[in-house]
């Protein structure tokens, strides 16, 4: 007799388990031993084995035994070799993907973590940097004390929350609006239900306690040292802020008319209203001895050599402001603009009138989404985003969703062939349909031209969201080392071979997020202080409230909603609808206080 699967079948019940398992994996804490993880993954694979073929059934069990001996510190010196040989054999001989992929995963571990293997086999323990830390603070590049400020919000002390954020990040407002919130990625709450809406809570805090109304820590007395900061973006201003609190004089050289960098000239006003950005900037400039010289470009008004001579140290944070064009014919035709230039002009008030124009966007990153949604607001007749594959849509999901709601149309599996012009103006773009192919060795999907004919798409404006680069030509001439238009600096933000010159942010990493730039500014400030021979400490007056027991009742995450797409797309007014007090308190109440429970109360268990 044939039967439908019952609702309470084993498979259904297992699916529920797997859902929970998935969230556990997502919330896998930072700082764990990778080999312990690999071993548990291997055991998952073993539990997936049907038990038919020998290599999978018996080979994986032996691989597990070898891995166990590594973890218990009694592995022989040749264990990695034996493990490798065994897994190569399994990968080549297993009957189905279960065994093959399990063995490949172990091989992968040998390739990715040779240091951890060595440490376990030779010293019987993990490498020194393996230790579990609080997820949110660890994953925040600036290591903001996230549980601490959430607890302050919960107590109604939003000013305290702003102070605590600013202990590591002087852009609480800007980050409340636009941060990519890596802090939420491994939020332990995910194990219970969903990650906390940390950015949303920060937004609540800065709305209640405006950054320029909250006291900054008392600046140290003047040290007499002067540091030149090149670039008044998030990285440069962060560096200047901390240097000023340490008592140094920071002089910021900013090419544009106003400070803020990409926060002002890249991110559209509907995401970050400029008057809100000004709150952060005002607080930074008032924190200590910070002087900002706008309209001053190094290499034009002032020479890099002079800065090195006249200042005790230099921080280069020039960002990545030049929008890339494509290396193809007609790429410099009229009406073909890089997204960065398009956004910058719009921010500076030099808006293009796109009424009735068909706009095409190449690229799927956050900058491309900003450009697309800006084009909508400039009354474009249509906005199309073309990407080669769905994977090329790397923007935050909420950005893509927001763009879709505002009428931006997305087409994928189309590769960009060429630009058709007429009288020097773009007329149409040609696109080649693609088919999905293999993943490359970085795990990215590749595509191939399909046999279908290329596709002509008429357009009046072409916006290129294909990356940005730094304007390093002048600095290169002054001897600053670069690599592919990026300044060569290490994780301590020190420029290779140039004592006293530091660099960080987009000009070192390539286009990245505001919080990464802020983290670099913070690291640079403390390292400049060390370089000058000091160990200045910066006080933080906010006191983190004690943790209270959390009953852990599964509770939904409070999302930040956006205004009605049909209303919001007509203006540059802010789109977010911030949390109400009621929502914020409930959301803050979901925090599990990992700074207090679990590893957070251990010595070395917090981060930064």
């Amino acid at each position, binding site marked *: 007799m044939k039967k439908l699967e019952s609702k309470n079948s084993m498979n259904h019940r297992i699916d529920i388990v797997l859902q929970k398992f998935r969230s556990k994996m997502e919330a896998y804490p930072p700082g764990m*031993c990778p*080999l*312990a993880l690999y071993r548990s993954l291997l055991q998952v694979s073993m539990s997936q084995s049907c038990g038919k073929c020998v290599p999978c059934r018996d080979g994986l069990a032996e691989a597990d035994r070898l891995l166990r001996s590594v*973890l*218990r*510190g*009694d592995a022989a010196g040749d264990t990695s070799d034996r493990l490798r040989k065994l897994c190569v054999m399994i990968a080549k001989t297993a009957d189905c993907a279960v065994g093959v992929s399990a063995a490949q995963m172990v091989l992968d571990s040998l390739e990715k973590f040779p240091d951890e293997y060595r440490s*376990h086999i030779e*010293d*019987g*323990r*993990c490498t*020194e940097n*393996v*230790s*579990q830390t609080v997820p949110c603070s660890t994953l925040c590049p600036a290591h903001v004390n996230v549980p601490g400020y959430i607890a302050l919000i919960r107590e109604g002390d939003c000013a305290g929350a702003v102070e605590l954020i600013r202990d590591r990040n002087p852009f609480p407002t800007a980050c409340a609006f636009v941060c990519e919130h890596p802090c939420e990625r491994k939020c332990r709450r995910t194990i219970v239900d969903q990650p906390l809406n940390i950015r949303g809570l920060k937004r609540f805090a800065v709305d209640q306690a405006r950054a320029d109304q909250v006291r900054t820590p008392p600046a*140290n*007395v*003047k*040290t*007499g*040292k002067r540091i030149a900061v090149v670039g008044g973006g998030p990285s440069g201003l962060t560096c200047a802020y901390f240097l000023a609190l340490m*008592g140094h004089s920071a002089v910021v050289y900013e090419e544009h008319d106003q400070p803020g960098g990409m926060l002002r000239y890249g991110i559209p006003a509907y995401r970050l209203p400029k008057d809100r950005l000004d709150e952060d900037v005002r607080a930074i400039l008032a924190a200590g001895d910070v002087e900002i010289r706008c309209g001053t470009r190094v290499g034009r008004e002032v020479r890099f050599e002079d800065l090195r001579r006249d200042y005790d140290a230099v921080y280069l944070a020039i960002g990545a402001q030049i929008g890339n064009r494509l290396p193809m014919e007609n790429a410099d035709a009229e009406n073909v603009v890089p997204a960065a230039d398009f956004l910058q002009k719009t921010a500076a008030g030099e808006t293009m009138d796109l009424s009735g124009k068909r706009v095409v966007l190449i690229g799927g990153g956050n900058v491309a989404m900003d450009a697309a949604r800006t084009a909508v607001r400039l009354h474009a007749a249509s906005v199309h985003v073309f990407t080669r594959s769905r994977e090329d849509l790397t923007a935050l999901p909420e950005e893509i969703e927001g763009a879709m709601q505002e009428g931006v149309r997305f087409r994928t599996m189309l590769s960009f062939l060429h630009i058709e012009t007429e009288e020097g103006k773009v007329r149409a773009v040609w696109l080649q349909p693609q088919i999905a192919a293999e993943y490359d060795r970085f795990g990215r999907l590749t595509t191939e031209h399909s046999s279908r004919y290329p596709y002509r798409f008429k357009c009046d404006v072409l916006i290129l969201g294909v990356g940005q680069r730094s304007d390093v030509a002048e600095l290169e001439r002054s001897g600053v080392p670069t690599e592919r238009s990026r300044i060569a600096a290490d994780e301590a933000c020190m420029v290779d071979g140039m004592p006293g010159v530091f660099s960080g942010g987009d000009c070192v990493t390539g286009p990245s997020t505001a919080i990464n730039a802020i983290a670099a500014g913070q690291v640079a400030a403390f390292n400049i202080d060390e370089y000058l*021979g*000091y*160990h*200045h*400490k910066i*006080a933080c007056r906010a006191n983190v409230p*004690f*943790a*209270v*027991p959390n*009953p852990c009742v599964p509770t939904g995450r409070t999302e930040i909603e956006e205004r009605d797409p049909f209303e919001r797309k007509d203006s540059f007014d802010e789109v977010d609808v911030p949390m109400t007090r009621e929502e914020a308190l409930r959301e803050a109440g979901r925090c599990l206080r990992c700074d*207090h*429970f679990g590893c957070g*109360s*251990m*010595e*070395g*268990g917090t981060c930064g």
Partner: protein
Amino acid sequence: MNTVAVTINGRECVVRENRSILRAAKENGISIPTLCYMEDVNYIGSCRLCMVEIEGYDRLFAACKTRVKDGMVIRTESETLTEYRREMLRLILADHKTDCMSCAANGSCRLQEICAACGVRDTPYRGSRGDVDARLPAQEDNPFIRYDAGKCIHCQRCVNACQEIACSGALKNGRTGTMHLVDAPFSSGWQESGCETCGICASVCPTGALTLKRDRAFRKWETEKVLTTCPRCSVGCQMRLIVKNGRVVGAEAADGPANRGRLCEKGRWESITPIHAPERLTKPLIREESTGGFREASWEEAVRYAAERFTQIRQRYGENSLAGIVGGGLTNEDAYLAQKMVRTCFGSNNVSGCGPQSVTDAVTGSIRDVTAGADVILLLGADPETTHPVAGMLLRRAVMDGAKLIVVSSEDVGLADRADVQLKIRPGTETALVRGLMNVLVTEGLADGTEAAAAEFTAETAGSVCGVDPDRIREAARMYAAAENAPIICGQGTKELARLAALAGKTGRAGCGVHPLCGQPNGQGLRDMGAAPEVFPGGQRVDDAETRRRFESAWGVRLSPKPGLNADEMLRAAGGKLRGLYVCAEDLCAALPDGADQALEALDFLAVQDVFLTPTARKAHVVFPSVSFAEKEGTCTSTDRRVQRVRKAVEPPEGARPDTDILTDMMNAMGCPQPQLSPARIMDEIAALAPEYAGVSHSRLDEEDGPRVPCAGGMLPGTTMRQGRGTALQGNG
């Protein structure tokens, strides 16, 4: 102070807001079992023995880290809780090596104690660590401390004690795979680990995982403990000597006002090693004129001989030909009698300690106050981590708590790594630097008044003299001036430093002032006892007629009005004006290496009383065997002027006698009748003569934390601060 009302085991309790449940219960007489918990140090909730039930929650909560909330209903005892506590212990035992019979911690093991209390005899579990611990490298290269991972219960008390009490951070948490490790720094290379071998980690270990190697020599129940003051430096740490069968076998920290449970390598190890050393002197020695070697003598003979020789020299060369040196490790009572002997029997004021003469009248708070309440600490010419390690710990604590630190030194000082600003000056340029600081205060309008001595010393001038960036001098001065509370902690108090503090308005308040760290353990006491050439006990000047009359009537002899020689001057005068010297427990050859050898040889007569035959004693004509700090009663005065008890823990080796008894015999033999007094009675005499010690008595010190002098009025708790007097900072340093 806000309070909340909670119910614990059915009883309504009003407790302080934000108290942990554990403390709230304790304050209401309810005890909750703990293993990993240490108040204010370790409250991480590892052992889960302190789990309690809270109404409204299904889960249980660790009382050590859960704070009370108003209206909370808590139960600390139930069948479930009892059973769970037993289960926790069984799980812990499963990974704990139970060779209790031969374990050094047997009898003092907290795990043992609590298993017994909970009725847990063994475990049905196999444990998860297997022999992982056995394969980790042994941690026993440190000469004093060993770590046996097999007994570790991973409670992290040691890690947090190292971090929060020693403030060192040499012990860390580590990991292997899914297991916690204690990264103890006691394997090879321990010297480079930053560990100061203070032993605090071992003292807080609840099992035998971290032990002091010497603890194998005794069981807790075989010992008794005697509270005393550490003799190794002037911080005045309180400690307990552990005594087994009349021998001191160990020392542990006590909760003294300065150390609060801290003790350093010097205190824990160095202090007790000499007590039972085989080289101890037990017989008086007299140098044979004929052979030049020593022969043993009876006490009567040795005392008579020494007294005769001193009397002869005095008769032949006059009063000023005799002098006495008082060791910085002696008690106040010893020092008092020594100076009394010099002043009454020798007839001169030639009495001195030989440490750098510490300036006594500095404005000072207690060492804990100045480190705990400071916004900025100016550390100048001192390396407390090396010389006064517990003070070093307190300074590190202060920095951890947010105090800014300025380090001025010509040497490499470990604390410089934590300094906001460091001024590494050329040797000998400290005064120039301080003048530079004063100059900045005056020129930048940060000073109360002006300072003529600093007029020429601009930051630039001082900078070039000291070899320091002038910006740093300016910053240090500004930082110091801007702070609300800013003590100066220095190696030696000087007039300039006192002036600097006054200029910046940093005097006369808690957490301010100038705090010299006395180089000698009882350096402060020596000066207070008048073991100084220009003052009688209590810092009263010898050239003041009225004072002199008081002492003359008390001591029944005429006293010299002329300030005497200090130790350096004595050595220079040896063989010339100075013919005879009495050295109480000081090795001059080590303390004043420049010229001590020759000077001592030039003397007509040298008497030494000491515990060992030191290089100085080897040059003596008579040597008296005296007793160690563990064998006598007395008091000493810490660098922050706290008078504390030294207590007898063991009998001295036969033949050795207390310093006060030897001095009394000497005085009687030289014709100055001195009754045989107990140290307690000597202190009564001191209290009667030295106004600053009025109110100090052994019985009082036995009842309360040592008061800080001046201490007028028998029942007052002593002074917390002292303003410099007219003669402030006139030390001859």
